[in-house]
């Protein structure tokens, strides 16, 4: 799809509607600084970025950038508008309200949906952005070209899915529960595995369910528990009291508290420096991105060591491992606290049982405050935050109660104690089953996560494989374009590549005078970096097979002057099929492009200098930019005269080259800095013999042109030089000078076919002529 025209009104620099007509051709627009060139580029970006302009993303532009997007002098009753007409007869427009909200309209409102900014628009300040961007930004810029969106979606969706599965399966929570069970078992029974638990359960099963036929561990445990409960319920009052006291006395509170203290101590000693370290990371993280962009070396915010950016990733991985060990210590601490709380609950519940009867009443006399403290205790508070103060209070208030229970039980019958011990043993065996269940859930959840992660890695590997081929093609184009722009620079093997140590990353390497360089930023000058940035942009644009235009906004200003001329070669060689919009404020380059680019596929337009917001953007009726000179006629006629003379220097040089005008060699740089008078003098001398215009079926000398050259030459000698050197030109003199110069230049173009007299050359190089043959420059007569 090509653009026929871009119309804007009260948008950015424009006032009432102004149209950049292209008729599907490529266009070069010249305009002095501030004439409104970028307003047309802004219109393209406005649609691409859905109502936003990146360069207006600041605090003064308003919530929807309305203060910058809309012409500040727009009348109250008009809307700012953009309208793109395309070569398929359809159009796309946007109406912008004063609050910045916009509405799309037109017959194809999705026409520009696939126009990614980074491959459509290149502005002066963005030329080197690709080179200075991060590897991730480079990858993002390339991704649409790779055509691997579906695989990228698979990779990203599976990455997120693995995280969601981790959360939904409560893997961390289940792991923590398993640790709690293991810790509780360790405290009660020491190290015991599934086989040991099986043996223990088998022995109890034979004892309490002698006629049982169960083979399953869980069923056996259930039957043993039932039998034990029946036996305990059948005990007389005294033995019931003994059973309760036994249960209290078996609580190993001392061991529980010791475990919590050890876990707390381990956690504190590991976590304190970590917290300090993480704080430091937070403080420096903001500056980190900037450092990564500017230099390949950076200081680790955690330890301060200077290290290459590429090593930073592995450094961070080791930091993450440290964090993993802290998480594990947190888990152990949580388990120890959970066991302590469960045991306190057991003591508390037993102390509230009616079976304690008179024993409790007797105890209240000496330990009333402790029993009351235990009754009021909210165990969940300790579970949430178990401080050293809590532990001290438990030791003061609960430990004595357990000691009393132990003392009381000192001489009591062993059969009751055995019942309670067996009850605890079967509970622990039961927990082993729960642990096994949880372990299985964790294993299966982990397996699912591993599969999801493997699929993500597989998709990324596939992306890498396919990307390498496409990136190789783009790299070859970058190198080719570089060679066109810089045939003399020994920079070889310029290539994009996918770093081995990172996904979603692309970088640039090259060989500089035979030595491999990790980045163009290491060796290339700013001008050369900009050249390379332009090559990369153009190579990526060329790779995009969709037919859509490119917009280059003053990009050559950052290129070395010596290489600007080569851009015309690049455009002719590589972009004859693409529609390209070039905006420039470099008059010399504009003239050069006008001479070199084929007028059948290129248009050349000139903007008038911008005056005020109510006048807005205006096209000049001419393409020779003498309006630049005219704007100074009133206030500085000497400056207007000087500008006209400079324009003639610039405009005549390519015409002389085109018509092969021979000038005597001058020493050194003087040879490259000819002035208008030198060219005109020669055009007059040669033209009297060579310049002809059709007259019926024959040709006659083009006397009118020669007279125009003479007049321009004489005024330049008389007034332009005076304007330049003595600054005393009058307005009417400068005005006549400008008109004479414009008039002289117009004689080089045919009034019928509008093409230059130097457009076509015959096979024997005996003459040059315009497209229709109305004008010709015949050699051999000079």
């Amino acid at each position, binding site marked *: 799809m090509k653009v026929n025209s871009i119309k804007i009104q009260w948008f950015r620099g424009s006032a009432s509607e102004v149209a950049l007509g292209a008729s599907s051709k490529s266009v070069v627009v010249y305009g002095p600084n501030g004439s409104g060139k970028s307003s047309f580029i802004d219109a393209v970006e406005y649609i691409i970025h859905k109502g936003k302009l990146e360069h207006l993303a600041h605090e003064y532009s308003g919530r929807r950038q309305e203060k910058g997007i809309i012409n500040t002098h727009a009348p109250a009753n008009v809307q700012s508008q953009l309208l793109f007409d395309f070569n398929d007869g359809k159009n796309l427009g946007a109406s912008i309200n004063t609050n910045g909200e916009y509405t799309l309209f037109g017959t194809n409102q999705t026409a520009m949906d696939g126009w990614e900014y980074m491959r459509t628009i290149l502005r002066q300040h963005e030329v080197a952005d690709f080179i200075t961007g991060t590897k991730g930004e480079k990858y993002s810029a390339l991704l649409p070209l790779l055509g691997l969106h579906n695989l990228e979606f698979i990779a990203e*969706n599976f990455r997120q*899915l693995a995280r969601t599965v981790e959360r939904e399966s409560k893997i961390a929570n289940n792991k923590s529960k398993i640790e709690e069970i293991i810790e509780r078992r360790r405290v009660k029974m020491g190290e015991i595995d599934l086989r040991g638990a099986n043996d223990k359960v088998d022995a109890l099963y034979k004892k309490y369910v002698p006629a049982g036929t169960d083979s399953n561990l869980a069923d056996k445990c259930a039957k043993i528990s039932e039998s034990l409960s029946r036996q305990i319920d059948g005990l007389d009052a005294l033995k019931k009291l003994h059973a309760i006291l036994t249960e209290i006395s078996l609580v190993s509170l001392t061991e529980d508290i010791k475990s919590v203290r050890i876990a707390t101590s381990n956690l504190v000693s590991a976590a304190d420096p970590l917290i300090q370290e993480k704080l430091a990371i937070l403080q420096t993280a903001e500056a980190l991105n900037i450092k990564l962009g500017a230099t390949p070396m950076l200081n680790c915010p955690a330890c301060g060591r200077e290290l290459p950016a590429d090593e930073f990733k592995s450094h961070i991985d080791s930091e993450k491992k440290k964090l993993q060990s802290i998480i594990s210590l947190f888990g152990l601490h949580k388990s120890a606290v959970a066991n302590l709380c469960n045991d306190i609950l057991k003591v508390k519940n037993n102390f509230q049982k009616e079976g304690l009867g008179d024993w409790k009443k007797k105890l209240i006399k000496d330990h009333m405050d402790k029993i009351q403290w235990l009754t009021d205790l909210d165990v969940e508070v300790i579970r949430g935050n178990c401080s050293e103060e809590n532990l001290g209070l438990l030791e003061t208030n609960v430990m004595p109660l357990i000691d009393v229970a132990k003392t009381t039980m000192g001489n009591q019958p062993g059969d009751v104690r055995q019942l309670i011990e067996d009850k605890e043993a079967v509970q622990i065996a039961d927990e082993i089953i729960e642990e096994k269940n949880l372990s299985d859930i964790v294993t299966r959840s982990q397996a699912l996560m591993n599969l999801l992660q*493997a699929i993500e890695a597989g998709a990324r590997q596939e992306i890498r494989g396919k990307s390498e081929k496409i990136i190789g093609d783009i790299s070859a184009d970058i190198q080719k374009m570089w060679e066109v722009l810089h045939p003399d620079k020994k920079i070889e093997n310029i290539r994009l590549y996918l770093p081995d140590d990172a996904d979603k990353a692309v970088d640039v390497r090259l060989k500089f005078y035979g030595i491999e360089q990790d980045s163009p930023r290491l060796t290339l000058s700013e001008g050369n970096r900009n050249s390379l940035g332009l090559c990369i942009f153009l190579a990526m644009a060329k790779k995009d097979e969709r037919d859509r235009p490119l917009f280059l906004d003053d990009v050559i200003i950052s290129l070395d002057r010596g290489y600007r001329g080569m851009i015309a070669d690049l455009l002719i060689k590589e972009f004859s099929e693409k529609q390209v919009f070039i905006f420039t404020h470099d008059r010399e380059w504009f003239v050069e492009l006008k001479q070199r680019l084929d007028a059948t596929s290129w248009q050349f337009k000139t903007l008038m200098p911008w005056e005020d917001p109510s006048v807005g953007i205006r096209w000049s009726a001419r393409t020779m930019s003498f309006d630049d000179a005219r704007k100074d006629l009133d206030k500085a006629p000497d400056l207007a005269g000087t500008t006209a003379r400079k324009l003639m220097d610039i405009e005549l040089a390519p015409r002389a080259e085109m018509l092969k005008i021979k000038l005597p060699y001058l020493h050194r740089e003087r040879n490259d800095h000819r002035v208008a008078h030198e060219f005109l003098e020669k055009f007059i001398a040669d033209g009297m013999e060579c310049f002809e215009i059709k007259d019926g079926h024959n040709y006659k000398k083009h006397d009118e042109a020669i007279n125009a050259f003479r007049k321009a030459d004489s005024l330049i000698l008389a007034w332009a030089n005076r304007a330049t050197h003595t600054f005393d030109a009058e307005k009417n003199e400068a005005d006549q000078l400008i008109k004479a110069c414009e008039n002289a230049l117009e004689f080089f173009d045919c009034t019928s076919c509008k093409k230059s007299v130097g457009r076509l050359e015959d096979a024997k190089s005996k003459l040059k002529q315009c497209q229709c043959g109305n004008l010709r420059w015949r050699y051999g007569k000079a």
Partner: protein
Amino acid sequence: MTKENWLEKIIKEFKEQNPDLGEDEINSVSKLVFSVDMQDKELRQAELTQHAQSLLKNFLDNDKTDIKIKHES
């Protein structure tokens, strides 16, 4: 290597590493890879949660878990 080939390679390796997991569970994941849903856009959290719950249901089927424990005990 086609899209199917890279996935097949991953599934084959996964099966070898997890012999106790059945075809149903693995198929539930591999089918998801080439669903339009997965290839067309970045999924929102609600959609991810739905997929995650569905996959977990397949992977953590209670009956299968019990059978395994009974067998081991």
